[in-house]
């Protein structure tokens, strides 16, 4: 597809000359490749695309995307991107972050960006570990995890990033898997099309410090563990599509046979986030399946647009700002 300047872009155009410095086998490679393949589809010129990241292995990402980019400081990428996106609505802004970067030190910026619905896309590479600092547990590590900093096991109940994002009023929430290029591209596409903040959790394998954390869905050849969410379709899965999800009167979700009554039809555009939230509680451990795809995708006024609109209205009402007049406003007097 050609970009807004008429250039035909390919994945190669999005590669930089920097040597990629992740460990062999790191899931980040697959995400990078998927992203580079996907970008041309957007038809946005490279110079109008910006990747902003924090610190972490994941946060190296911008160095490898031949667009504008900033590898900023730990946890602050959503804040930085907020300033960029609100002043430059012409840009396509992407935030790349890790589970530590986004949910530990950066948790507050993340939830505020989501509630504000700032127009950028947040890709959270979740490997359930601190990779860059060599293997301490993260806010998504499972309870009891033995890591360098928790020799007897971690004590903190983990965040469910999808639940957290929905609780923080996110308008777009999705999940993808590093090795699932097709699924990831679908989610990325929907995220890119969404005006406002889009939050995408990507399960990412860290073979060095937390190998196989997501093996159940990464390598789900038989398709027995991935529950693909598609808007408007019944939520079913299993080798033969025989399993399905259904909601109980107590608000929770149970597994049933696809043939049974009351199978949930996925509605990612429902204004009320309750069902998306309930779906976020469906996990491999509790339900024997893991939803991937778009949980929630609703329209809501976008912070940046509202701001631009206020500027327009103010100018319309008061006229374009006149500096001389401004300085002379209020009570003035002349000394001669």
């Amino acid at each position, binding site marked *: 597809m050609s970009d807004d300047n008429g250039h035909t872009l390919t994945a190669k155009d999005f590669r930089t000359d920097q040597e990629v410095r992740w460990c062999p086998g790191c899931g980040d490679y697959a995400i990078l490749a998927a992203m580079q393949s996907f970008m041309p589809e957007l038809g946005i010129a490279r110079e109008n695309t910006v990747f902003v990241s924090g610190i972490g292995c994941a946060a190296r990402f911008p160095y490898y995307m031949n667009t504008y980019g900033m590898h*900023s400081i730990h946890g602050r990428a959503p804040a930085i991107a*907020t300033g960029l996106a609100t*002043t430059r609505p012409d840009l396509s802004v992407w935030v790349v972050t890790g589970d530590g970067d986004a949910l530990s030190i950066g948790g507050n910026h993340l939830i*505020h960006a989501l509630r504000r619905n700032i127009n950028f896309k947040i890709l959270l590479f979740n490997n359930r570990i601190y990779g860059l600092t060599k293997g301490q547990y993260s806010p998504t590590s499972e309870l009891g995890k033995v890591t360098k900093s928790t020799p007897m096991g971690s004590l903190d109940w983990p965040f469910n990033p999808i639940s957290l994002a929905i609780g923080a009023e996110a308008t777009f929430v999705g999940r993808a898997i590093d090795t699932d290029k097709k699924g990831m591209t679908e989610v990325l596409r929907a995220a890119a099309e969404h005006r406002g903040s889009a939050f995408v959790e990507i399960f990412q394998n860290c073979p060095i410090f937390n190998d196989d954390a997501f093996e159940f869905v990464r390598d789900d050849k038989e398709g027995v563990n991935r529950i693909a969410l598609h808007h408007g379709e019944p939520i079913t899965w299993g080798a033969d599509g025989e399993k399905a999800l259904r909601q109980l009167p107590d608000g929770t979700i149970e597994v049933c046979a696809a043939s049974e009554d009351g199978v949930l039809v996925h509605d990612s555009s429902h204004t009320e986030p309750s069902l998306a939230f309930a779906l976020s509680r469906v996990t491999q451990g509790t339900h024997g399946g893991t939803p991937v795809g778009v949980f929630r995708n609703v329209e809501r006024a976008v912070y940046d647009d509202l701001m631009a609109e206020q500027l327009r209205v*103010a100018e319309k009402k008061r006229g374009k700002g006149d500096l001389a007049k401004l300085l002379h406003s209020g009570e003035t007097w002349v*000394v001669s």
Partner: protein
Amino acid sequence: MGIKPVEQLSQVIVRFAGDSGDGMQLTGSQFTSEAALLGNDISTLPDFPAEIRAPAGSLPGVSGFQLHFADHDILTPGDAPNVLVAMNPAALKTNLADLPKGGTLIVDADAFTDRNLQKAGYAQSPLEDGSLDEYQLHPVPLTTLTVGALKDVEGVTPREAERSKNMFSLGLMSWLYGRSIDPTIAFLEEKFAAKRPEIYQANVKALQAGYAFGETTESFAVTYEVKPAKLTPGRYRNITGNQALSLGLVASSRLSGLPLFLGAYPITPASSILEELADYKEFGVRTFQAEDEIAAAGAAVGAAFGGALAITTSAGPGVVLKAETVGLAIMLELPLVICDIQRAGPSTGMPTKPEQGDLLMVLYGRNSESPVPVVAARSPSDCFDAAIEACRIALKYRTPVYLLSDAYLANGSEPWLLPELETLPDLTPTFATEPNAGDEFLPYLRDEQTLARPWAVPGTPGLEHRIGGLEKADRTGNISYDPDNHDLMTRLRAQKVAGIASDIPELEVDDPDGDAKVLVLGWGGTYGPVAAAARRVRERGKPVAHAHLRHLNPLPRNTGDVLRRYEKVLVPEMNLGQLLQLVRAQFLVDAAGYNQVRGVPLRAAELADAIEALVDSE
């Protein structure tokens, strides 16, 4: 009750003090307007109560406003009032100590009830126990008189009527000092006439009643006149520091042609900059009230990357949180102005009180060698110029710049000679638009003169590049762990900032007769009292030189020469000696400090004595 004699005064200092709900700030600023329009030079100092509205009548709930007006140019709101207007016992209690014996004291006699006396901690009424004998006491039943004057105004509740007593006192003071109440009537009209005509009426009536009371009462035998001051001709406006700073930022946006982006989180005494700027949307100003100070600074860095004039504002406890982000901006070499409206600390400290405690913090409060220019404003109206200068340096040198003001400048006001737009500097930056090394773009290839790197904003085709907080290779900006490169880059960053010395004016010394042996060196918000103190010392026939720093980093290139020219150097500061440490270290000059950390502006009289003692010593 004929016309009373008029006594000429060259200057008067009036302090209004009352309960937070008594409208003292409004009274004070209206009296200020009247004085300004009459052509006096003026200087004001509001004194807010502790940040929470304390219960009515309590000591912590007292709010004050001091106005100094004169027939000549003045430098400070004055150390001590000549006239104190106290609306209740608590206001009297907290302010009396500042009134010199013999001073004029006007109190609302109605407010001296048992309950109020008790709240203020008076065992008996000071109006009756003789304790005020040494003052010119005028107990006026302000409340009764006000309520009486308003009895015919319809639609006003008794409480509202009572609350107009501040206008009564303003009327009385206007009469006493021969000021016209017309500007205040105009102000009240604009503020209330449309929305609440009855309140408008009540206020005007009270104002007029106060004025008339002055004319008729026996209590005041003379009135006073303070002639207009001989100020530089031109159009003036009364302005507070935070207003001037905000206007300076808007002006910089226009002068640079860049849209203004402010990232801020509310904090006393900086919040009003956010509030001011939020109201300039027709100037394309974007204000972002962030979730915290870190996000505020971060968003500003993002905006700077995108090509905006990026600002973040706060006070000490919030500025300290921005340090990591400023460190990033130093590494990214992007323009950013961080305004620190200093307040008394450490920690939460005394949020509404001024201090100069953050100088060393802004210079050094970041990990590792992270040099940054620092600019400080000297007076309320000077905040305008200081803001433009901070923006100029930030944009030209692609660097974060700290702009220091304080709680006193922020809320204090003075007449501001409005600048001609043409005299303001052109701040237009040059954005990179094409490769700068053959057909390559090197984001860290520096301008030879300024050492600034190119500013290539997203949207510019062909200049796509990535920057970040890791050490970067000279020229290319790629990540580098090379030892010599790090040493080089560390020195380059330092040199870039140090080099600004050649781009700022030399330090000017005010040494009228050139015979001074003592130099007083000040910076920032103490300009007024320090200059006033120097003036007093000279009036006593003693020579003293005075210099004042706008740039704290780098220091003007002649600073060392200036300091070494004098036998003694005194550095007055509202801290324990921060500039002092800098000049001693840089110039090995045995300068001494004059330090007060009282959360109130330095007092010119005390400082004058200290200077005089130094001049006299040996």
